[in-house]
Structures are given as structure tokens and as C-alpha cells.
């Protein structure tokens, strides 16, 4: 077992985790943050994306021990932000959400792109190429993403 302390969605959180536990399992099973989705489990699809110290990471492939001392934001942490308010409106208008499983990961990736810590925004298609939508609604996703990041 390991003792960790990190800031999760703005709240200082102390955790006791198994050495081999993945961040995804800690978020969903210990903390009930089920907006983080379990899907491919091989770091390809982006459904389990969370933000650690400003960067998007796959929580399915990160040992929970790595978030000791770090700042973690999940989709639940965006709830009261102006970004989220705007994203809801834009995503709804473009009919971006079909089944919705990829939406939390997409929103967190977009949020990390807009908060400026990653430097200037490069090609949006390239940046989002790691977030798969299995309903294949890519045109509406890109249209919404372009509006949100402009």
C-alpha cells in the first residue's frame, strides 16, 4: 500500500492505494468519479483522459502512485467553469454528442488545449486524433472543437 496526497478537482485529497493500482481504478472505484470512462485500456481511445499537472494523460495506463503531489482534473472538476458552460452550449448546438462515451475525454483534451499551458494551438485534427468517437461523429466534433478553441 502507498499513501498519496494530491489535489483532485481543486480539493486536497489523501489516498491509500495499492502499488499496482491504475489511476483510472482509483478515480472510479475509490473516489466515485465515474465521468472518467474505461474503454480500450491500451492508451489509444482517449475515453479515460484526465488532466495531470496541465497535461492530458490516459488514466488507464498511469500508475496511481504517479499522481502523488500532482494536480488532477477530471470531467467532474470542469462542472462550474465557464469553459464547461460554453462547451455544453456548443456541443449541443453542433449535435456533437451521440452515445456520449467519448465526450468527457474530448472536453478535457479541448480544455487543456485552451488553457494556454501547452503553448500555441497546433493543428486541431492532429491534437484530437487520439480521441476516438465510435459513433464516428467526427465532423460535428471538429466543428464544435474549432468553435470552442477559437
Amino acid at each position: 500500500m502507498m499513501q498519496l496526497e494530491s489535489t483532485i478537482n481543486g480539493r486536497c485529497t489523501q489516498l491509500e492505494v495499492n502499488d499496482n493500482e491504475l489511476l483510472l481504478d482509483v478515480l472510479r472505484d475509490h473516489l466515485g468519479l465515474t465521468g472518467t470512462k474505461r474503454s480500450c485500456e491500451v492508451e489509444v481511445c482517449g475515453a479515460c483522459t484526465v488532466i495531470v499537472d496541465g497535461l492530458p494523460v490516459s488514466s488507464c495506463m498511469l500508475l496511481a502512485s504517479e499522481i502523488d503531489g500532482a494536480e488532477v482534473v477530471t470531467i467532474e472538476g470542469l462542472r462550474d467553469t465557464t469553459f464547461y458552460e460554453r462547451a455544453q452550449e456548443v456541443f449541443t448546438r453542433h449535435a456533437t454528442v451521440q452515445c456520449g462515451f467519448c465526450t468527457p475525454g474530448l472536453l478535457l483534451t479541448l480544455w487543456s488545449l485552451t488553457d494556454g499551458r501547452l503553448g500555441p494551438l497546433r493543428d486541431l485534427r492532429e491534437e484530437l486524433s487520439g480521441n476516438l468517437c465510435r459513433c464516428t461523429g467526427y465532423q460535428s466534433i471538429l466543428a464544435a472543437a474549432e468553435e470552442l478553441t477559437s
Partner: protein
Amino acid sequence: MEEAASLLHRFGDVASFYAGGTELLLVMKMGLTDLSHLVDLKRIDGLRSVSVSNGTLRIGGAATHREIESNPLVMEYAPAMVSVASRIANARVRAVGTLGGNLAFADPASDPATLLTALGACVEVRGTGDSRRTLPLEDLWVGAYQTALDHDELIEAVTIPVLKPGTSVAHERMKFQERPAITVTVSVTAVNGSIVDARVVVGAVAPVPRRLARAEYALVGLVAETTEAGVDLAGDAAADGVQLLDDSDEAGPYNRQLTRILVARTARQAIESALLV
């Protein structure tokens, strides 16, 4: 670093260095390895730093792809490394995965491995006690997923010599989903409008990235007017000379054709840019 190496020594086969885990955790999840101890290298001071001295760029083994692509020194001294690092897998892998981890895992589908081989890079290796050695990248890999590193040796840094004047580097790849099916780097040096030195490295279709001497030979001596014919010859020589990971009746001809086309294309790009200067 000494402590990390000695931990590996102490725990033996059930221990491994952990430098991002984007590939290591994957093979652990697949049940392909039976590790009970991981020694995290990313938290070791200085193992993520980037510096320049004596005409050599030095990147710490635990620097992440994201740190490399956004580092001003790398941008200045090895711009090709920036463009390669910024296209590895996806943003999440780049945030966590490290250069040393990538090279030590020896996955054939590695973009940095191919580029760095062409750039003549070396790895500084650290082991238990005072053990240190420097290996040219070409000697680091002995086969797919196999390196010349001892169990308790870690990659402390990667050193990249600064390019000779008149040198241009081009790197191309083709990928399906996120893993490159082929990676090609061509580096050429031009003097007075003529190519005097060339390096051609092909990876991903091969077990390890290797220079292809006959393809390089086809490029030396080219001038603007002979470039088109020369790069096609280089493509043919590369397709002929490449040692394929999968040379079956089904995949072999396809992989050779990929090699032919991509080597010619990458060589054309490198030469055009070298002759422009």
C-alpha cells in the same frame, strides 16, 4: 541513479526500470511479464534535463516527448527531433512517455530511434556503482525488443552531435492508427551544390533501425539535375537491402514497396532542402 541501478541489481529479474510506462504497463497488462518491482526513473533529479556543450545536445533519459518537443535548445540544435517528438502516438502518450524509455524498450515501431540513428546519436549508460559507458545507438539494439543493456543499466542521457554545415535532415513515416508501419530518415550534406555525404535509415519494417549503405551510396554525388533519378535508385537499393521484420509472402513485397517509395520521397525532400541553402 546509483541507487536505482542497485535496486535493479538487488531484485533481479522481477524488477524493471519504469520510465513512463506507456509500453511497459501495456506488456504487464497483457501478462507478458511477471514484474513485482518497478523503479521510477522520472523522479530522479537531473534525469530530465536538456543541455548543450561542446557542439553536442544532451537530452536526459527521462525527459518526456512533450518536454523535448517544447524545449528551446532542442528546437535550436535538433529541430528534426522536435517535429518527430511532436508526432509520437497521441498527446497523452507524449505527456508521459520518455525518450530513454522509448529507446530502452526497443520497439521496432519507434520514430525517435530511426531519426537518432541517422543523426549519429549515442546513449550514456549508467549501471551499478561507478559503471558508465557510452554506446552509439547502432550498438544499443540487438534485435526487436532487445538491447545490449545489462539488467541494471539505465539510459542516463542521449547525446546528439550538432549537424555539420550544409546538412539537411528529413523524416517521414506512414502509420495506420498510432504506430508507424515504416519510419525513414535521410540526412544529406551538400557542398557547392553537390551531395557529399548521406545517411539513410529505415525502421519499423525492420527489427531495428539500420543504415542502408547502398542507398546512401546512390545519393552521394547527386546534383540538382540528377536528383530525381538518384533518389529512385536509392529507393530501389533500400527496398533490396532492408532486412524485414515480416518478410512473409504476403507482407514482404508490400513492406519492400513501402520502403522503396518512402526512401525515395524522404531523400528527395532532404536533398532539395540541402541544395537550396
